[in-house]
């Protein structure tokens, strides 16, 4: 009898366990170094296509499925900020504000909420399919694409909108082009527009973006450009084939890393005229930790040259957020931690930030040489330390 009772008790405990945990999905990480990666937090109900923004410092994630909501990773508490479903979200660097972009028919609505969900600002911006960045605690940068169908093709205009703290918006046209009909037929407008995803430098003072070149007598290709946001000066980095991989700034802010159509990864000093270096690893998508110790290439985590783990991810590539690795897989987000702590990005003072970005702006404008910049930067950083 007691044996039957025990079996029944275990049976009911198992049922209770499943009821409480809701059939928890485990991220099937393939670990090359045992015990190096664990799942710290799981956020369910983030299906592919749902925008999200993680605030690792406050352990919360903003999501855009059906409504705009913020979920605490510690308590699971969910707070609805807005009834609308945004297509892009971004926490400010001081963790006090959340910016969200909402799509209208031919324009975009920007809303800024404080940490408690109160709406503090609202603007309308021309264009759609945008990316959103905080360039300071109070300045927003939104990159949008505006398309128009014509008989001779689809014209595309990339705009950069600087939303100032006072709500004033200054718009700069980054690039205008026309997708020729045969190019659209070959690749599809959506695929071509997907590549228009600018990247911002870690110092948030430079932007990396692509321009499609679709000349009538040539095959189409992209040109990768860097733009210094303060000076407005732009420089062409390289040409990319349509099927090329990702492009990002290096964590030290000084170079650009990109993957070509053959999955070779290249790195080049942003404002020099030298030739790029080819990295030893290959891949299409990649991310680097702030201390440079870790990298993720096509869902494989490396420490230096050593493989740590293969991390499932079905949206882009897993990326680093402070000391976490963020993976999006199936309908969940996973915050992962390793045994060896990934160092948090060093916080630099606003004074240092201002001096560094000024130097970088002057370098881009040609007011100082690359060598003068390097020496001045070294002195400033040494003074700070």
């Amino acid at each position, binding site marked *: 009898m007691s044996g039957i009772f025990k079996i029944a008790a275990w049976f009911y405990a198992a049922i209770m366990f499943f009821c409480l945990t809701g059939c928890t999905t485990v991220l099937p990480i393939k670990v090359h170094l045992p015990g190096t990666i664990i799942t710290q937090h799981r956020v369910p109900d983030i299906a592919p296509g749902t925008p999200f923004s993680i605030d690792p410092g406050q352990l919360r994630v903003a999501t855009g499925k059906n409504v705009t909501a913020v979920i605490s990773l510690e308590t699971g508490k969910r707070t609805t900020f807005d009834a609308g479903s945004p297509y892009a979200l971004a926490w400010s660097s001081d963790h006090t504000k959340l910016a969200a972009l909402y799509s209208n028919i031919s324009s975009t609505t920007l809303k800024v909420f404080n940490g408690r969900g109160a709406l503090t600002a609202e603007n309308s911006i021309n264009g759609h399919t945008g990316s959103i960045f905080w360039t300071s605690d109070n300045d927003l940068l939104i990159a949008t694409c505006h398309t128009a169908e014509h008989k001779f093709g689809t014209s595309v205009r990339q705009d950069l909108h600087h939303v100032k703290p006072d709500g004033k918006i200054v718009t700069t046209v980054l690039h205008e082009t026309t997708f020729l009909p045969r190019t659209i037929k070959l690749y599809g407008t959506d695929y071509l527009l997907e590549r228009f995803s600018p990247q911002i430098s870690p110092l948030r003072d430079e932007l990396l973006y692509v321009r499609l070149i679709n000349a009538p*007598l040539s095959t189409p290709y992209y040109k990768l450009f860097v733009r210094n946001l303060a000076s407005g000066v732009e420089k062409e980095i390289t040409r990319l084939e349509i099927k090329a991989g990702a492009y990002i700034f290096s964590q030290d802010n000084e170079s650009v890393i990109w993957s070509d159509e053959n999955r070779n990864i290249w790195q080049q000093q942003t404002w020099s005229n030298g030739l790029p270096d080819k990295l030893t690893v290959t891949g299409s998508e990649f991310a680097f930790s702030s201390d440079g110790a870790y990298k993720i290439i096509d869902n494989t985590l490396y420490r230096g040259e050593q493989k740590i783990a293969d991390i499932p991810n079905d949206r882009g590539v897993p990326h680093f957020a402070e000391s976490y690795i963020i993976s999006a897989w199936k309908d969940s987000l996973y915050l992962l931690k390793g045994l060896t702590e990934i160092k948090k990005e060093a916080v630099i003072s606003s004074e240092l930030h201002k001096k560094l970005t000024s130097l970088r702006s002057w370098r881009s404008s040609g007011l100082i040489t690359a060598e003068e910049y390097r020496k001045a930067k070294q002195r400033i950083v040494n003074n700070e330390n």
Partner: protein
Amino acid sequence: MKIKKILLQAFPAMVLYGLLICCSTAIALESPTTSDQDCVSCHRRKTSAAVQQWEESAHSRAKVGCAACHGNDHGKIDAGESRVSTKTCGTCHPKAYQSHTDSRHGMGLHSGWGCTRNLPDRDNRECAFCHDKDSSRILSTVHCARFLKQTSEMGEIGCNRCHQVESSCSSCHTAHMTDLKIVRDPANCATCHMGPDHPQWEMWQTSRHGTLYNVLGDKKAPTCQTCHMVAGSHDVSRGITMSSGMTPYPPETAKKGRAEMINVCTECHAPAMVRREFERYDAVHLQSLKLVKDAEEIVYTLADQKLLDPMPNARPPHPLSGMSLVLDSQLLYEDTSHIERLLFKMKKYDLAKTVKGAYHQNPAYTHWLGNAELKMDLIDIRGEASRLRGRNISPVQSAPEKNKNKTEIELEQLKKKQDRGAINPRDAEAERKLLLDQFIK
């Protein structure tokens, strides 16, 4: 006997009466309808040449009167609503109408965009640019940016007079004369197929073919019609292997056209010679396109660097593309920058001369008037690009607003001094070091 006498006396009268009956009947048969007679009787005074031409024409002999083409409604005619279009002529000349409509002449008014039906990777959706759904009828929207820039007068007499070949048989056949001698003479093509952008008349005339024609006539030398309107066909696209913008057709599409043209050439020439010649023409074609591509790349790069002067967004909008850079077949020769104007000459005039000179067997056009000009155009474009780059104007289209600090202002002034040679590089470097030292402290 008496009867015989009566008959003999009456016979001349009977003959005369019979003749009168026949003549009046003949006269009655030959007379136009009442409405046509009205037209002729009035227009013999008003537009005597037109009536005389018609009376001497095959239309007149075939009893095709005024109303058959112009209709009966004089009010409509006066209002210009009864123009005789190709469709009208097609009622009686369906074969010619169909082959004309299907050919390049059949899209003369829409040739700014160019028919895409034979281009590589053609998207079926492109058909909608010119056609209603499931219709081969061309929409009336004008597709030529250069036409849209003209005054209505210039558009009519400088553009439509040639391009209306699409909708008017009289472009070649004249309005009322039907003598085939007119349309069989290559000079008939010269009105339109001449000039800097398509000098086929000049090329042919001074080529070996043209010279032989001038001396020996069309029995001994090919004319425009010999090669491009074989056996009187109105399909002038037959044998063509490139678009009107000179983009080569893809090999599979070009195969048919090339075979058709080889058939024509081998009427007189050995097949091996013909094939060899076409290989040369094709090679020159591609070589010329490469030069144009290099030039285009220069202009695109300058546009990227926002160095065109003026930039597209700082000049009147392009009629079809708005504030965009346009370097394709809709390239303008007005309201553009100087370097784009150079590219226009290169693409529209000199590329055409080189390529068409080759395919029309005219060495001077191929080389001196074409290829040499192409290469000199490229030098001009590179020179202009160099000048634009050297102007050192800020490439920023709309510089972001910012508060400049004192160091930045001084660095800018120092740079300007160095750029104009007021300070040597070594001294400038020393000054920059001082400024940076102050900034860092």
